[in-house]
């Protein structure tokens, strides 16, 4: 559903790049390094975002961590409480680095934080895979309208929106360009 207003780019390629660099540094700073950190992207667009943040952390930590051990994915689809209200979607793989996530600081990475239900499902999915020491949340855009007591630790941009508005995140890995569009 669109508002009828023209679509407007709220984050450009450059803005996205800067936001991810900042998030990467905040993660390293807050966790005093990245040795204990595991980034888990939530499909679909959380996965390339986690990969990009991971690459920046590897760079910032100058080789003290490897991307293969730092980044994975977690698909929360099977844990959603609204599974029956949505059209069936294919499941995405869950890939946890071989060291597992027990006692790690897991940072969930997603593109847009909205109702919070995806994150809740991801938290349930995590608990079936292991027991992280702590879980943090990084999102590119926080658009508000939470339905659960969930907040992000790292936010690319706070974007106040109306419910009828639509936030579309486009990433080069999956789409033509890097941009966030509000329509």
């Amino acid at each position: 559903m669109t508002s009828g207003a023209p679509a407007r780019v709220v984050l450009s390629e450059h803005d996205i790049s800067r936001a991810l660099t900042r998030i990467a540094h905040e993660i390293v700073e807050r966790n005093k390094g990245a040795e204990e950190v595991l980034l888990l992207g939530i499909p679909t667009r959380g996965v390339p975002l986690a990969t990009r943040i991971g690459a920046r952390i590897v760079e910032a930590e100058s080789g003290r961590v490897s991307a293969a051990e730092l980044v994975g994915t977690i698909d929360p689809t099977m844990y959603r409480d609204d599974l029956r209200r949505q059209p069936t979607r294919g499941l995405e793989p869950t890939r946890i680095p071989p060291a597992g996530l027990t006692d790690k600081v897991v940072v969930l990475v997603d593109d847009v934080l909205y109702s919070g239900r995806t994150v809740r499902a991801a938290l349930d999915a995590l608990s079936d895979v292991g027991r992280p020491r702590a879980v943090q949340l990084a999102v590119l855009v926080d658009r508000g309208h939470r339905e659960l007591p969930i907040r992000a630790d790292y936010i690319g941009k706070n974007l106040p929106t109306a419910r009828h508005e639509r936030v579309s995140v486009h990433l080069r890995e999956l789409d033509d360009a890097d941009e966030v569009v509000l329509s």
Partner: protein
Amino acid sequence: MRHLLSAADLSREEAITILDTAATMAATQSRAIKKLPALRGLTVVNLFFEDSTRTRISFEAAAKRLSADVINFAAKGSSVSKGESLKDTAQTLQAMGADAVVIRHSASGAPHRLATSGWIDAPVVNAGDGMHQHPTQALLDAFTMRRHLMPEAGTGAGLDGKRVVIVGDVLHSRVARSNVDLLHTLGAEVTLVAPPTLLPIGASTWPCRISYDLDTTIAEQAPDAIMMLRVQRERMSSAGGGFFPSAAEYSRRYGLDAARFEALPGHALIMHPGPMNRGLEISARAADSDRSTIVEQVGNGVAVRMAVLYLVLAGNEGTPS
């Protein structure tokens, strides 16, 4: 996907979605906690008019791994005529609030009748009907083949160009029928090998090759997978139809003995839907070899049935229930 009634109904895209979903389900089955909450609060009824412990347990395990409640309804021994009995049972299940029905019936077309009669609104999954179809068996066979023959292909892959030989009692086999349909959809080349008496009329119109000679077929096709069908011993006698003269002759011409096993390409998978008659259609050597996927097929069956139940049950709230 509303129902799963026949492997022939599946488009290539749907079939691959099921296989990809099954791969994800299989990955969760190696975890310490195997249970997923996806179908919590839903009731799956296993409606078995015909005995099949393996298939029923497989569906039951699949439903339970997805947190659904399972009711096993063994309708064997019912004396009412089949049409009425199915209708009465369906209406009972509807009243009890079944969210999905898994049905096994000796009459071909019973699942289709249940799905389209309006007696019940729940999705229907065919767990084998008469000599007609057994789509989840075909899916688990395809899943097993894809895993071994195309390990690098990952999600989205079919079985394009793979050669599969299916040997034995095609006439009475819903497994063979379902496999021909599905493997053709996925791009594989199928050859059926059977005595002429065990091929159904019209098999020549199916999307596969037909041969009466197993040795020639193995030599010419160099199959990537060979699937041996179970031989019902009672079909040998004249009372059972007299489809072939003796077990020894069948075994000599169509059994996967040591010599034929050696003649297969080194990577060829040995498959069997079970239960096996060792020494009749398959030698112990072939059945127990490291290329045999017979035991793995059973495990893959649970993942495939999880995928099917998930796909027919998720996203269905918009439909009347």
